[in-house]
């Protein structure tokens, strides 16, 4: 995916593109809808419906999309929090992520952590900071004695910008939202994971605090070299932190590209509309020139053909045709998108297809 012209300003430490940490192929997660006396399955919500991507060592891959597009489900599914998945495969550092169980899974979980959106509900109010951050260290046998654990927790608190002496014995309610998110981060990095899923990790925070946490995440990545799967609906935040960004719509990735490339040359109509909807902190910026009409369709009964066609300003009659495969195009190195009208983009090369609806 590297190649391409080097950006003028290097603002993120480059990822190690030779090492793939996580490789996901055609991942599917459908939730059944049951009805009636015998809970018969009458339909499925295809929350994730064939998603393929890789994450490299030290890389941040951003996932954006409207609520219900499946971005959170992708994150949870690869952490094995939504077993069983409906289909597809995922390998983490060469190991089949979806097949392992028991001890192997426990070992894998050391290497994969999550930071949640809500710093208020994701910390146990009855545990001190020391036990919240140190619990996993004990469970995985990394520390033997209480003294060892305390020292390790203190190091971690220092790393995330908390006071190792004053804060260690306190309870979550004694902290502000930003500080709680720091505790959540300390917990996530305690086992020195290789991948952290950040699920809307900064969305609930005030702007000034949001910037502090984004900087902390970037700094930790530079020091420790882990990869992030960064899920958020705040597009400017995702652009800022990610090396590459995947745009999801109704369970599929519709466009994926290096971050600067995606924001400078969005090629899928949905990406273009999504970007034009971001309010910019510039009073002279034009407001929503390509405003997106309508809302996300009902995922139980999505439109046939291209799922985006009812809202797409370029849609043609052929976009509505049922059961046609959706072609996938390469626009530039590492820049791919799925659109029936993709051949209209100069330089687009057809590299595959997604199954139709």
């Amino acid at each position, binding site marked *: 995916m590297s190649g391409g012209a080097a950006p003028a*300003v290097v*603002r993120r430490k480059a990822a190690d593109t030779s090492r793939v940490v996580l490789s996901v192929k055609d991942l599917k997660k459908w939730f059944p809808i049951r009805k009636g006396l015998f809970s018969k399955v009458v339909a499925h919500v295809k929350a994730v419906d064939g998603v393929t991507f890789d994450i490299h060592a030290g890389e941040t891959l951003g996932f954006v999309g*409207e609520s219900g597009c499946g971005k959170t489900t992708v994150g949870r599914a690869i952490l094995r929090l939504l077993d069983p998945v409906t289909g597809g495969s995922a390998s983490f550092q060469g190991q089949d992520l979806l097949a392992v169980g028991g001890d192997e899974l426990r070992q894998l979980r050391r290497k994969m952590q999550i930071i949640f959106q809500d710093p208020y509900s994701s910390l146990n109010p009855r545990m001190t900071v020391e036990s919240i951050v140190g619990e996993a260290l004990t469970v995985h046998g990394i520390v033997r004695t209480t003294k060892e654990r305390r020292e390790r927790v203190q190091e971690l608190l220092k790393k995330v910008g908390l006071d190792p002496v004053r804060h260690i014995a306190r309870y979550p309610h004694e902290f502000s939202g930003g500080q709680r998110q*720091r505790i959540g981060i300390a917990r996530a990095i305690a086992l020195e994971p290789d991948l952290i899923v950040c699920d809307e990790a900064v969305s609930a925070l005030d702007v000034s*605090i*949001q910037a502090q946490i984004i900087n902390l995440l970037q700094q930790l990545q530079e020091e420790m070299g882990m990869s992030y799967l960064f899920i958020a609906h705040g597009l*400017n935040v995702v652009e800022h932190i990610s090396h590459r960004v995947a745009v999801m719509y109704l369970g599929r990735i519709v466009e994926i590209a290096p971050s600067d490339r995606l924001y400078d040359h969005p090629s899928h109509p949905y990406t273009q509309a999504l970007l034009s909807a*971001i309010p910019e902190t510039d*009073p002279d*910026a034009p407001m929503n020139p390509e405003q997106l009409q309508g809302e996300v369709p009902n995922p139980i009964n999505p439109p046939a053909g291209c799922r985006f066609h009812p809202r797409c300003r370029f849609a043609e009659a052929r976009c509505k045709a049922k059961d046609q495969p959706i072609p996938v195009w390469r626009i530039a190195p590492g820049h791919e998108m799925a659109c029936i009208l993709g051949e209209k983009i100069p330089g687009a090369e057809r590299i595959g297809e997604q199954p139709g609806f």
Partner: protein
Amino acid sequence: MSSNGPLLDLRGLRTHFRTDRGPVRSVDGVDLSVAPGESVGVVGESGSGKSVTMLSVMRLLPSPPAMHQGQALWKGEDVFGWGARRLRSFRGREVAMIFQDPMTSLNPYLKIGVQLTEAVQLHLGLDHAKARDRAAEMLRRVGIPVPESRLDDYPHQYSGGMRQRVMIAMALSCEPQLLIADEPTTALDVTIQAQILELIDAQRRASGTGLVLITHSLGVVAGMCDRVVVMYAGRVVEEGRTEDLFGDPRMPYTVGLLRSVPRLDVVTERLVPVPGTPPDPQRLPSGCPFRVRCPWAEARCAETRPELRDVAAPGAAPHRIACHVDITKAAPREPASGGAA
């Protein structure tokens, strides 16, 4: 802007809450005015007092524990002097409010049509059939397809964006002179947010309604408002025309807020966050409450709390800040690295 004075004029408004641990000074001397047809953005972090200010104006806070001081003048009359009857026509008819969460502001047991007709029957004295026609007309204006049939649906049958449209329809149904929107799009996706903002703006322009838009998003304010008011720790700390405030912020807190937002059009290696956390309203620092997070703070900032002063060029629109320091002349201290939140 009309010449016959502001619609809403807050003078030294204070709202303190009595608690067992002493008073919480949520709103601590706010001066703010809105002219007819003007749109004013109120921004600030959580706890800065922006919502409590507007809830106080609407007289929606039970007292006690809320204790009000100062004046909130609606066309020259103090709302704190009004009885229940006057307030009833003020709320809904003259000023309408839209809240962040449309699900909790709609009654889940009542059909949308019932909730929409209630206000117009009460305030405009329409009979049932006319009120229903008007409700359908309002739903059409906010972009709800087939409004006649949607009147008999319940709130849960509407999506989040649709519910917010209903709230806007309800707020505008009595043609208020001022619309107060408290984080109207915070719970929505960016795409829906853009639609809702566009809708509020179009409706406002069409009917000449004044707007107070409370938000923490600087981007939303930049696109929507004529004037911006920045609040911190219960007071207005900077106020001016949108172009002036975004182009030439003069209060260090505003500077900090603007720098901490990642921008798509500007490449930044690292964001510059505002260090520290918003203050506890029960334990405000002495003097300027922002001084503990401020890279420009001087010794005098700990002594007196700065009053709002005009820093605009002579003859220009007012641009007021509450700050002792002239940041165009003084140099900031290097921010401490790391800076715990």
